[in-house]
């Protein structure tokens, strides 16, 4: 799962070090265009439905947070 998500993220913006970055949204590293594309790709890749309520910085600030969100939506 982590590799797939990394591929998606690299494809959207390859300038970010996703393995260490912990403030992807707070620091404005991804803009709204990127976020919409990211959510679409994540929905398709992991067969989940990320809703507006899930769109909070805490869920997208780091790779681990995004993995936790996927896990929650798949198994929650």
């Amino acid at each position, binding site marked *: 799962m982590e590799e797939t998500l990394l591929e998606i993220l690299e*494809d959207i913006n390859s300038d970010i070090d996703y393995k260490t970055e912990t403030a992807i949204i707070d620091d404005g590293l991804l*803009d*709204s265009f990127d976020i*919409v*594309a990211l959510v*679409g790709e994540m929905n398709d890749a992991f067969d989940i439905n*990320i*809703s*507006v309520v899930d769109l909070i910085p805490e869920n997208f600030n780091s790779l681990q947070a995004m993995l936790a969100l996927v896990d929650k939506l798949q198994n929650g």
Partner: protein
Amino acid sequence: MTFLSAAFAVFFPITLIFYYTLPKKCQWVILLAASTVFYLFSGPKYFIYVLATAGVTYGCALWVKSMADKFAADLPELKKTLPKDELQKAVKKAESARGKVVFLALAVDLGILIVLKYLDFLIGNINSVFSLSGDSALPTFSFVMPLGLSFYTFAAVGYIVDVSRGKYSPEKNPAKFVLFLTFFPQIFQGPIPRFERLAPQFSAEHRFDYDNFRGGLQLALWGTFKKVVIADAVGGIVYRTVTNYSDMSGIRLWLGMFVWGIQLYTDFSGGIDMTRGVAECFGIHLDENFKRPYFATDLTDYWNRWHITLSDWLRDYFFYPIALSKRFARFSKSLKKKFGKFIAKTVPVGLLSLALFTLVGIWHGANWGEVLFGVFNGVVILITTLMEPLFEKPRKILKMDSSVGWHIFRSVRTFLLITIARVISKAPSIPDACRMLGKMFFKPDFAGFFGSFGSDFSFTESILPYLPALAGCVLLFFVSLTEERGHHVRDLINERPAPLRIAAEVMCVAYIIVFGAYGLGYDASNFIYTNY
């Protein structure tokens, strides 16, 4: 009653005394009573609109919640008895029923807003399109807008949508909900409140904290400085620019519109500082609405720094709900197949962004100038996004992103772009805006402009009256620069020894008293954003 009125000078301390001396459990009641009195000062009959919005939103939120609770209670049994497809149908039916209640609330809330703020604009356009005049023209109504109409309506809409999303439970006490919508410091010009951050503060008990209180007064004082020393002092320059533009050189129009940018910022952000400062005196912390917008490096960045609570509201309740919908995803996928990744990523979101900025324009006022102001912003952002790949490589190769010069260039470019947009919204009409922009770009007339500094030029009449405001702008720039570098100026001041801090406060008060734009005919109630 406004922050800078004599009535407020009496109202504010009395409210504070009641707030901190009566039992802590009554504090929210004091704020509700104060907010009601404050609102009634703006015209008792307008309070009925607020109550209508509050009543319908409050009731619908409880209704939606009870429907959701009932369905959640029935769900385990439904899961046991219904096959999967029937269960999905039941879930969709329940969602649809809740959606109808939300729609009812939105129809009433936004209906009041549209009728009071936009109906005359719509009628005027219908009359114009069908060439209706005289007796055949549809009548207009010239409604007077209730104080804070757009702000409390957006707060109510955000609340009902969030409750329907299950983000939080609805408020059970109707009086507390009325307080959420009408809290007196923010009713003037925002910030647009979020229930989950504001409502818990009304339920908390606030002890008097001298440092917090002083911090609130300092913020309000700084806001007053921006409003009275800068915004109100330069208003005449802007007025003359817009009304006498045909007699002015292009370069003079540029200067006039730059001043309009400064006036608008200092008026609105000054008002917000006063709002947040007054609220902080009660221990209530409101959301920030500005983060040094003129340091923005592009228009997207600008709108992330200017009127932040409006941008955030439109993002959460307009942009993302559409952008994350299944229909939108299908549209993006179809574009991806035909035109590739880049187009699929940028075009749909770009068009949605264009629609969002059109709404920003409409929010600012019911006239075509404001609508085009929004469209201009949206178009520039769309073009910027589409062209970004062309400049990505050169930027990286030349390491421009780390260059201070490049940063300054981008900030100046953004300021110029927003200045052009503001010509469209500030000019008396669209043809006037075109003529102004024509002069600004094609007839700068440097010789004529500098020629005006000739023998008939009077320093005493032309420059001297604006020197205090100019000095205020210089101070504002350095304060903003310090904050842009991550420091909090209030903290820096309060860390100094008491005599230095008190001296700074006294100097600020003295500067306001001596150089503030007072005098005969002065009306401090005219906050530009109050009319929105």
